[in-house]
């Protein structure tokens, strides 16, 4: 029922207005702007202007891309593909998240101990480890790790499908490539990021226990009491909100870069896929940290 309503809204709304500009971006191979050092040195204003326009254009395209793909999550025959993607993006990232989480917690405990012991405040170790993990390090590091592991794979996979005409083939078979390739990945990211973040937080606190209690000899009761008493529900929900924001950013950026790998101005073919993968990872990481600041400042108020 709900997907039918959404479908109708989408057809009425997007078809008329935004698809036109979307397909312009898809088809404007002649408008590729080459921006290089030369242009920057000799035409600085033109360079900045073009860069800004290019950025705003791609931002708009990415927004339309995301909206269309998100609406198509709720259509028929998506469940199987979402579960498949959950396996690749979520389940297969578990081990690396556990490993990174454990050592992040351990090193956090270690560093904080040497700082706090100067003030005789080693009792507050539990608070510091738990709060910084749940509020900040958990969501951010999880997102960066999944970008490195799954995001790059998404871009490369979709990029290769694009340059070998497999996406065009889908199109000719009346299979919507956005629905078939993009929507399941966005849905799977939105589901798996918070779960993996929770895992990261948990194992990070265990890591803190390993270094603080077992290695440095702080009593176990103090550590866990501080962890428990300092954490509020708001800390945890804020962390989850962040991880969902990151999920949307990472999956959109990675899918978008792969999907339009053939439109790159700087290269063609296999090289374009490589560059798309690089810029997907770099852009995702930068946007994770940028949006982290924005979201945190909004949530703290």
């Amino acid at each position: 029922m709900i997907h039918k309503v959404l479908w109708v809204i989408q057809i009425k709304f997007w078809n008329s207005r935004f698809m036109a500009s979307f397909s312009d971006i898809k088809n404007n191979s002649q408008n590729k702007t080459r921006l290089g050092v030369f242009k920057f040195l000799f035409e600085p204003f033109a360079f900045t202007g073009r860069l800004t326009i290019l950025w705003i254009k791609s931002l708009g395209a990415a927004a339309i891309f995301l909206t269309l793909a998100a609406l198509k999550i709720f259509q028929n025959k998506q469940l199987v593909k979402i579960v498949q993607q959950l396996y690749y993006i979520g389940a297969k990232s578990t081990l690396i998240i556990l490993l990174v989480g454990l050592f992040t917690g351990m090193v956090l405990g270690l560093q904080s101990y040497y700082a706090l012991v100067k003030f005789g405040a080693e009792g507050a170790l539990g608070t510091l480890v738990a709060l910084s993990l749940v509020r900040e390090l958990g969501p951010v590091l999880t997102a960066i790790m999944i970008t490195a592991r799954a995001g790059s794979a998404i871009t490369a996979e979709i990029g290769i499908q694009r340059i070998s005409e497999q996406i065009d083939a889908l199109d000719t078979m009346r299979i919507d490539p956005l629905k078939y390739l993009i929507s399941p990945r966005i849905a799977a990211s939105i589901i798996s990021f918070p779960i993996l973040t929770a895992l990261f937080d948990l194992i990070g606190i265990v890591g803190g226990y390993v270094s603080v209690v077992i290695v440095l000899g702080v009593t176990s009761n103090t550590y866990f009491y501080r962890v428990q008493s300092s954490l509020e529900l708001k800390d945890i929900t804020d962390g989850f909100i962040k991880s969902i924001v990151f999920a949307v950013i990472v999956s959109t950026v990675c899918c978008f870069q792969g999907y339009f790998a053939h439109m790159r101005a700087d290269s063609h073919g296999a090289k374009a896929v490589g560059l798309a993968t690089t810029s997907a990872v770099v852009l995702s990481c930068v946007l994770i940290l940028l949006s982290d600041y924005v979201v945190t400042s909004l949530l703290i108020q």
Partner: protein
Amino acid sequence: MDKPLIEFQNVTKRFGTKTVLDQVNLKIYEGQVTTIIGLSGGGKSVLLKHIIGLLQPDEGTILFRNRPLRHGKGRHTSFAKGEISYMFQDNALFDSMNIFENVALPLLETTNLSNTEIKKRVLARLEQTELTEAKYKYPSELSGGMQKRAALARALITDPKIVLFDEPTSGQDPVRKNAILSMIAQYQRKFGFTAILVSHEIPDVYFISNRILALYNKRIVFEGTPEELEDFDHPFNDEVIQSLEGLQAELTGLASRRRFKVLYRAQMKRGQQGGEIYSVALFTLDALESVINRLGYDIAQETVQHLGSFINKQFSPVGGFSTRFSANQFVTVLPYTDLAEAKDILKNFIADFTEYGIHNIVNGNGEKQPQNACAEFSILVGLAQGQPLMNIESVIDTAEKNQTEIGRVNCS
């Protein structure tokens, strides 16, 4: 003629500053095999992509059943897509899925059929395209020809009314090229779809095409039947067709159809002056269809090829020239020979043929022949004496009426 299925009206397409199609007008009719020929990079694929809507024209309209494919600047209207399948030049198979999944995908995603029904249909298609053994292999594990067949199976799985083939024979050896073309022709007859091909394979495509469109210098310069193209007087003919035909002739050893006509005309001219006579022999490989069905396209084509080169070898020393006349027929012209002499020459030929020829033809494909599979076929030959000023078609007709069996391959 009835209404066109697809019509281009002044279609222009540019990439940046480069114009690829310039005011193209063309018509494609339902139920026919239409072939678009032209030079590489001349925009043939671009033209095909306009039909399925992967590309949009900059100017002009494309009518599909008299309805424009696109209104204004909106999205490509997809009503045509349901009826059209597209076979990409480099197959565009999904390389991380096996062949079965590749072929099943269109049904899985666009229909509500049950899994058992889908499985049944896919297996039937794979059987028809001789891919049953490769169904769990990945595209990269298959040979080029098998990949082509897989792409064909995928294109045909939805029972399309129109199939677009973008150079279905590119990158294949001459035998396999013919095999793919005859496969397309056979499926076209079997399923009755409208086929639109882009191809370089002149003259092989003539045997299967109802209509030829020639794309030259960004425009369609010719629309008509293959026979009409022979008499078409245009730079296109000299540049494109003759060079392609020349290449083909070098590969098979037979005279190309055009060269054959030139030789024939020269013969006629001499005939007018000196009253020379000549004879025509028509060779037919009977029951080609049953060979295809029993042994597959490749072996059938090899058999035809072997017969062709054997005929050529036998008759060139006595001054005869031969060409492939249709999918399973060869014509040889023996100049300065009356019927009695021709019969003598043919007697020698038959003696040689029964001694070596059949042996060769069977041996030629013996290695690839699957065990326990065998097909019976016979070879017929007919003779006719041509008079000067007589039309060659009518001489060939007479030869066809006089045909008798000269050799037969039996299963034993």
